[in-house]
């Protein structure tokens, strides 16, 4: 296990390198000159040229790439063209907002998805099963933005139950410590604000969780159906074990590997999905950050934002890989 982790960790290096290369390449393939964006359309050719030089844009691509790599490794993500602030310090509050939203969404997706899948499989071909699977079908085919708008219209505008925009109320802002508001409000002992943060989280989290919930539910169902038919489940029944116990303890652990894989992939996709959700719900996360940067052609910010999302994606899947062994002792770490 230890050697395996090390080996996997070493294998991450080429993956991460490739990732930086791709991000680097994409940005450079996009038409438009950053110097022009910075200086405005009235800039003289001389000014553009000298800015290009000071930004290093006149060097060959590989020199640019290596200096970019060097910067990343030293924790320097560049400066935002728009705000002139270092991105590394500016991005954290956004990242924290995204992590908080994604995390809650994923918890909803895992909890609801797995339980719906289990019950569907256990009560195969029952009314419950059909209902859950039709909902799952709707869930995967529902466009996120449409669901988001529907939620806002129903729960914020019509019923006025929940807020539709932002992480907190403008007049009652959270005083950040870690920028993870759920934690911050607790640290400051502000239970009223904690509740407010949760109310803000509900709608965007549900919108974001819909697709992963549906996919996890389907995967759980098919994986569980397979397992429930197996001989060792029959053995457990022959011992006199209760069905609830058999399903949740025995079967689930066996069915978990494919579910875990889906959870890993969905977490990654969820980060991508966050961009859309964040713009709809005015959620000040990385998604919104990138979205604004795109409008402003703030290339360093776009680059860093994408890089960080890709990095999280890779890390999540790395963790999932390591988790496999926890659920299946037959997986040999070599």
């Amino acid at each position, binding site marked *: 296990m230890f050697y395996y982790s090390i080996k996997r960790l070493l294998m991450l290096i080429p993956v991460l390198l490739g990732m930086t290369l791709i991000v680097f390449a994409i940005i450079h393939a996009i038409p438009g000159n950053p110097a022009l964006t910075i200086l405005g359309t009235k800039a003289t050719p001389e000014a553009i040229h000298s800015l290009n030089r000071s930004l290093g844009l006149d060097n060959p691509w590989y020199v640019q790439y290596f200096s970019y790599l060097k910067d990343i490794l030293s924790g320097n993500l560049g400066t935002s063209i728009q705000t002139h602030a270092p991105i590394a310090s500016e991005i954290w509050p956004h990242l924290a907002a995204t992590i908080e939203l994604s995390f809650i969404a994923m918890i909803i997706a895992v909890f609801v998805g797995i339980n719906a899948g289990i019950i569907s499989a256990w009560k195969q071909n029952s009314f419950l099963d059909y209902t859950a699977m039709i909902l799952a079908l709707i869930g995967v085919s529902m466009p996120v933005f449409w669901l988001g708008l529907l939620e806002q219209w129903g729960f914020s505008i019509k019923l006025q139950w929940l807020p539709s925009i932002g992480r907190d109320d403008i007049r009652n802002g959270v005083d950040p410590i870690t920028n993870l508001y759920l934690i911050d409000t607790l640290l400051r002992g502000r239970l009223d604000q904690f509740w407010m943060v949760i109310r803000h989280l509900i709608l965007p989290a549900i919108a974001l969780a819909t697709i992963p919930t549906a996919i996890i539910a389907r995967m759980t169902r098919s994986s569980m159906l397979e397992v429930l038919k*197996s*001989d*060792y489940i*029959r*053995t*457990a*029944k*022959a*011992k*006199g*074990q*209760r069905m609830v116990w058999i399903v949740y303890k*025995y079967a689930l*652990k*066996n069915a978990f590997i494919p579910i875990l894989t889906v959870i890993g992939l969905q977490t990654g996709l969820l980060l991508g999905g966050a961009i859309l959700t964040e713009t709809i719900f005015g959620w000040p996360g990385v998604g919104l950050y990138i979205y604004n940067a795109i409008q402003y052609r703030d290339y360093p910010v776009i680059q860093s934002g994408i890089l960080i999302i890709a990095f999280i994606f890779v890390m999540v899947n790395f963790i999932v890989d390591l988790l496999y062994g926890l*659920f*299946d*002792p*037959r997986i040999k770490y070599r």
Partner: protein
Amino acid sequence: MDETLLKVEGLQTSFFTDDGEVPAVDGIDFSVHEGEILGIVGESGCGKSVTSLSIMGLLPSPPGKIVGGHIYYKGEDISRAKESRMRKLRGNDIAMIFQEPMTSLNPVFTIGEQLMEAIRLHNHLSKKEQVERSIELLKLVGLPRAKELLAEYPHELSGGMRQRVMIAMAMSCNPKVLIADEPTTALDVTIQAQILDLMVKLNKETHTAIIMITHDLGVVAQMCHRVVVMYAGKIVEEGPVKEIFSHPNHPYTEGLIKSIPDLHGKKDNLYTIKGSVPRPGSIAKGCLFAPRCEFVMDKCRVNAPELSGSVHKSRCFLHQEQGRKEVHT
């Protein structure tokens, strides 16, 4: 010794499939006495597994359902018992082991976890006592390194060892009846010999009655006291093993015995029963064995013979004729 533990009366189990009702078990009667080893023998598809699953209340349902008859355990009809009642009986009074030792243990839990669960389900023991009992059980079934085994996973064990673990698990609550559904079919012959030896030993030491389900008459001859021969969902012959092997009454039983290749002495051609096993429910009238029987008579195609006799029973007109003649003379 003579107390009847399990009594199956007119049991009928069907599967309701897209092609209609399949009468997998079609009215069988037999009983199991304390401490005996009863063999149930027959070719694949004759309803052996369905019989055992019906007793355990573990039929896959749907499509399987007990549609007639009764199963009495110590006088109590369990054929339609509530699930909660069956859970108390399973593992504690009636235990079962299966054909596939490779897949019958849960791959993601250790041997110890699975064994202790079986113990815990029907006994109130402390954690320490559970461990001790587990070690004791593993030793009982002849597994070396009992203590280390507790922490190992099924995939680290060979097929023979897994079947021993299954037996240990089945024996954990000192059941009165152990149903073994082809426990050695998937194993090599030398390992089969070990397992059969172990089962006979357990039967002698603990007086647990064993229902030994097999397709191998050799296994029956070696270890069973009585035997039930099944064909297409019905019992065609029943009696003490020695009787059945020395005087098989039913042509099917006789054919099965004769078609086993002999280890000593070489014949030019093996005896064969022509044709193959019919699908359950495919023969509408007359004796089920008539299409394959070499003694078939006209009436066999019209009327179905009944199971008759007292200690040694059989379902064949041939024998009933002779029997009557013997009575007359």
